[in-house]
């Protein structure tokens, strides 16, 4: 069966992942997308969420903290703002980040004292933390 090359790069870790896979499932701003080999050319923005990589029967997850994805028939390139393989993730840190972000959002809801930009930032941080936890198979809701 044909495979498709997946390249995940991030600004601070360089090339995070580079291998031939059977299928990729991502969450884009326009919804979930499944990419199979020989997909049409595509460019889209990704949400902070784990990407699912299928190789044969096995499936693995990579935490992606938002970014862009370009698909050509032979190759998928993900320009991730941050990207971590499961073994790179520090669960305690992700939990702490999640708690911090949630506290901030709750504080905003009750008092409204945080500025809107801070809330956007907190929401993005929360989404990233959740993506990391999901990759570690920790339920987040």
């Amino acid at each position, binding site marked *: 069966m044909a495979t498709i090359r997946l390249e995940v790069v991030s600004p601070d870790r360089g090339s995070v992942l580079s291998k031939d896979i059977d299928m990729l499932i991502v969450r884009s701003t326009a919804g979930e997308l499944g990419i199979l080999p020989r997909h049409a050319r595509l*460019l889209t923005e990704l949400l902070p969420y784990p990407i699912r990589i299928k190789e044969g029967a096995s499936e693995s997850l990579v935490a992606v903290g938002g970014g862009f994805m370009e698909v050509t028939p032979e190759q998928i390139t993900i320009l991730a703002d941050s990207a971590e393989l499961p073994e790179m993730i520090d669960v305690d840190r992700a939990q702490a980040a999640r708690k911090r972000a949630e506290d901030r959002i709750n504080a905003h809801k009750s008092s409204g004292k945080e500025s809107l930009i801070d809330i956007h930032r907190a929401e993005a941080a929360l989404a990233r933390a959740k993506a990391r936890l999901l990759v570690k198979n920790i339920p987040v809701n």
Partner: protein
Amino acid sequence: MANLQNIRRRIRSVKSIQKITNAMDMIARSRFNAARDTLLSNIPYVSKTREIIKRIMSQMNASEASSPFVMTRQELIDAQSRTDGKFLFLVIAADKGLAGAYSSNVIKEAHETIEYDGTSPSVSAADEDSENFHQKIFDALKNAGVDGEQLSAQKGFAKAGRRGSKTTANLSVAKEYNDADYIEGIELITVGRKATSHFKQRGYNIIKSYSGISERPSYHYAKEIADLIVERFLSGEIIDVTMIYTRFNSAISCTPDDVTLLPLITDDYAASDAVKEEYIYEPDVVSVLNDFLPRRIATRIYGAMLHGAASELSSRMNAMSNATDNAQELVGKLNLYYNKVRQAGITNEINEIVGGANALE
């Protein structure tokens, strides 16, 4: 005859300078290692971004280019024949000196690019990989502007040229020093105190300058610069934006490089042999490109800042280790001289004693 005391003092001062240069060498070395690691882990991201841009642009159907950042050369000429555009340059250099020719090389390259007026032959020979489209844009505008209204940037060049020929002064000197006509068409953003003071002295219009970030760049500033560039570009007053920085090739080789950030001219990317396969944009082309292209600028600027930091530190490392070596050599020479003088003094004294003894007989 040289005074022994003076030579001793000189040896001591050279030695203490050597200590300082040696310390600076070691500091630069450790910072360089960190800067190189950051740079190396950033390179794949930047090169992938470039690849994607190249692919998208070569597939881009010029007529559907509905992003303000993408246009064909003809569109650019049409737009500029109505307005009076300027050029924006971003120069990335060092905050501190003592880094060999690092800053002066970037600034030299910046002058060559900024002062390009279509007359001098292309300095950086057009290799396939070059992303310096400023000269192409300039030429295209110049050729198109012959019959129509001329741009303020080009009018300035023409005036500077006329004045230069009248007074038979060196044209480039006339342009470099405070030629208001020519400078009117230029806006600058500078990173690094060296670049800022250099261009300020020469009367350039610096719309924003950054200092204190050249050695350890952070993405935050790159984003800020990118936002400013996008804002200026969208105001319609800017024809093109070109960044001049130092590309880090290896610890002993850094070369100045130019990258045109905006606009993206589809003609420059159109590969004749490429098969046209249109992209699908999710959710739609305008929103994806309007998110992606500004992000690309920040990415490129951040990458360039990292290249600059690594280049600066490696230049400083080389300069300082050369200085330390030279100091070592100088100390050796001075020691030799010192001993010679001392020896001559002793010989003299013996001669005097022998002479005195002989006289007593």
